């Protein structure tokens, strides 16, 4: 009886233990489900993060492209309006300008009566109030008719409206008719009112005249002395050399090309990429500098054998390009055109315009005038010959500035290139140590494999099932041995189920560890491919930089070889002799 009671109690306990084991198994299964779900969630989260990052990148790129497109469309619309406004407000000046050369050519051909010339000049005088060229043309007509009083009154009026342009206009007109002494007097008058630190923009015409035969021998000699004096005066000022170097550095740096679109792996995996991109762009500058100055001096610049034609071209430049009232609109026009030229990139356009800003100032120093002619010929209203002359006059400053640009471009070269691939950071010098780095990467990933496998463990439930199952099985044996065969067998089976569950989990453990290892090895393979690509790009980058940098010395040699006395021209052989002597 006592044995039967004890057996029943044991069976009861065994059933309770079995219930607990069952509950633990259920909890363990649920926990594993939850764990699995969490892992899936983490994987999805990672994927989501990556997609979000990609979306942000794509969105920013879209916004940037949209912004540029809108800026481009706006610039195209506004530039038309600015040009219309220029035409509306100053278009009537075009007629007056045409008449200036028209009158001179009519005088040459003697096909137009003096009265007709007089009438047309009176017409423009009435039609363009305030414009300096109108009374200048009246003075010209008076001169042709030998009406001294009229000519003098008109000259005074023209000088009142614009002293400097009037002086240059008559200097050129008189040169056209080989009145050299009179021409020289007007040139002297012009120079007497000029400050080399704040010249009027039309002083560019003086350089044009020197380089294109617009001045006769007397005026040429006078101009030579004046230009020499200006340079001496400016060179003696404190800080002038440094200012010139800075001005030319800015002008040269404006030729820097945009950053390379190549080297996509370095862009993504190297924190030094902005520095690498910048240094390469600075090295690629040298070829552009060489090309720019090569183009300046490339080819012959034809000079008309007829003095009148040559002077007319300079006159046309004087009357067309240097009216200060138009300056604000011309400045707007240029800003908008730069935005169009750079496909809506306002920042790039602003950088380029900043380099040209001195072209649009009413007064510039002589040194800035030379820079404008050399680097922004069309905007500054300089002829090709003047551009050459300006470069030749400035070549020592250019070489000094170029030396500084080259040196500053070679500064800050990364001695080693850092790379980060899949949270693994490494550095390389020239990208040629591939095997060493691959081996180092392998060591890292082997460590990750071990860690990944070690992180996969048997769950607590499995261990509980093992312990509980073993205990129940033992109890079952004891019970069966005690005479309660049915209960004992039941408990034994339960216990074996618990142990069997543990064994099953143990077998799955290896599969899970293998899966974790496979994931790490896949990441290793991908990482190794990325490492090889990065190293190849480091080699390519260093080679590209060296090739581009090697262009610095040939560019310097060409710049240093420029001689100014070869670039001033005249229609008079005597004058050339004076200049070279």
């Amino acid at each position, binding site marked *: 009886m006592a044995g039967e009671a004890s057996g029943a109690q044991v069976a009861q306990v065994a059933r309770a233990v079995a219930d607990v084991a069952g509950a633990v198994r259920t909890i363990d299964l649920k926990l594993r489900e939850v764990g699995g779900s969490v892992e899936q969630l983490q994987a999805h989260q990672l994927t989501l993060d990556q997609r979000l990052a990609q979306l942000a990148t794509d969105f920013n790129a879209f916004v940037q492209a949209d912004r540029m497109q809108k800026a481009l469309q706006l610039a195209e619309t506004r530039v038309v309006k600015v040009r219309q406004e220029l035409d509306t407000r100053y278009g009537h000046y075009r007629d007056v300008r045409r008449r200036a050369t028209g009158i001179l050519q009519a005088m040459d051909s003697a096909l137009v009566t003096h009265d007709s010339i007089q009438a047309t000049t009176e017409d423009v005088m009435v039609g363009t109030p305030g414009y300096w060229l109108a009374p200048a043309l009246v003075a010209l007509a008076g001169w042709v008719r030998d009406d001294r009083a009229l000519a003098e009154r008109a000259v005074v009026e023209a000088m009142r409206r614009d002293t400097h342009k009037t002086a240059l206009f008559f200097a050129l007109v008189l040169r056209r008719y080989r009145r050299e002494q009179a021409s020289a007097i007007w040139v002297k008058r012009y120079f007497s009112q000029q400050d080399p630190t704040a010249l009027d923009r039309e002083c560019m015409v003086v350089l044009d005249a020197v380089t294109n035969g617009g001045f006769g021998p007397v005026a040429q000699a006078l101009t*030579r002395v004046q*230009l*020499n004096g200006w*340079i*001496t005066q400016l*060179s*003696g*000022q*404190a*800080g*002038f*050399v*440094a200012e010139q*170097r800075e001005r030319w550095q800015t002008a040269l740096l404006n030729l820097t090309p945009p950053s390379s679109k190549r080297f996509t792996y370095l862009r993504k995996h190297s924190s030094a990429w902005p520095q690498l991109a910048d240094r390469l762009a600075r090295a690629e500058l040298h070829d552009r500098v060489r090309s720019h100055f090569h183009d300046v001096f490339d080819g012959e610049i034809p000079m008309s054998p007829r003095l009148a034609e040559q002077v007319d071209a300079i006159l046309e430049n004087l009357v067309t390009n240097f009216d200060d009232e138009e300056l604000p609109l011309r400045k707007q026009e240029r800003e908008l055109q730069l935005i169009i030229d750079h496909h809506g990139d306002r920042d790039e356009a602003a950088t380029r315009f900043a380099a040209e800003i001195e072209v649009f100032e009413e007064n510039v120093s002589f040194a800035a005038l030379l820079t404008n002619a050399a680097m922004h010929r069309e905007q500054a209203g300089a002829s090709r010959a003047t551009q050459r002359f300006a470069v030749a*006059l400035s*070549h*020592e400053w250019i*070489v*000094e500035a170029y*030396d*500084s640009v*080259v*040196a*500053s471009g*070679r*500064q*800050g*070269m990364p*001695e*080693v290139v850092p790379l980060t691939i899949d949270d693994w950071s490494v*550095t390389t*010098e020239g990208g040629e140590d591939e095997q060493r780095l691959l081996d180092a990467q392998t060591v890292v990933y082997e460590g990750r494999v071990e860690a990944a496998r070690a992180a996969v463990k048997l769950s607590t439930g499995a261990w509980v099932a093992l312990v509980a199952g073993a205990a129940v099985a033992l109890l079952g044996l004891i019970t069966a041995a005690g005479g309660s065969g049915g209960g004992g067998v039941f408990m034994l089976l339960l216990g074996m189920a618990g142990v069997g569950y543990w064994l099953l989990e143990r077998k799955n453990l290896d599969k899970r560890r293998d899966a974790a290892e496979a994931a790490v090895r896949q990441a290793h393979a991908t990482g190794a491919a990325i490492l090889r690509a990065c190293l190849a790009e480091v080699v390519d980058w260093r080679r590209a930089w060296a090739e581009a940098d090697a262009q*610095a*010395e040939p560019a310097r040699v060409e710049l*240093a*070889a420029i*001689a*100014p*006395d070869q670039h*001033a021209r005249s229609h008079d052989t005597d004058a050339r002799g004076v*200049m*070279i*002597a």
Partner: protein
Amino acid sequence: MHMERRLLLGGDQRLSTTTGATRGPAPPGGMSRTRTRRCTDLVTQLDSGTLTDAGALQRLLNEIREELGELGLPALPVGLVAECFLGPPFRVHTIDLVGEIVHHYQTGETMPPSFERARSLALHPAYVVIEVYADRMVAIRSDGTAVDV
């Protein structure tokens, strides 16, 4: 060297860039544009193995200061940086003219900030030495031309 230019009067208008160029007072407002060969040769003695004692180093530093002093520079550099030819792992060396210290640096070894910015220039074959001043640097080309950086 004077910065006046004789524009159209003829004569040699080009820079004087040959080594051994005439010493003279610095132009107004400017740095001398050339260095003599002796200047740059002194720096290369640091790698020659002839500096066997502190006295030899001291004499070398004095000669460098004297050579730079004769150029009439507005101020002497605080130090010089040049490529080191002792061989790997050393890449550059610095000469601190104030503290009279010479230091050889390996690849990746950081120099004091005032010298570090001269590192890649010193390693470039176009320059024999970089003069480091308090507020700027001057790179000396192999032809003796001094370049403001």
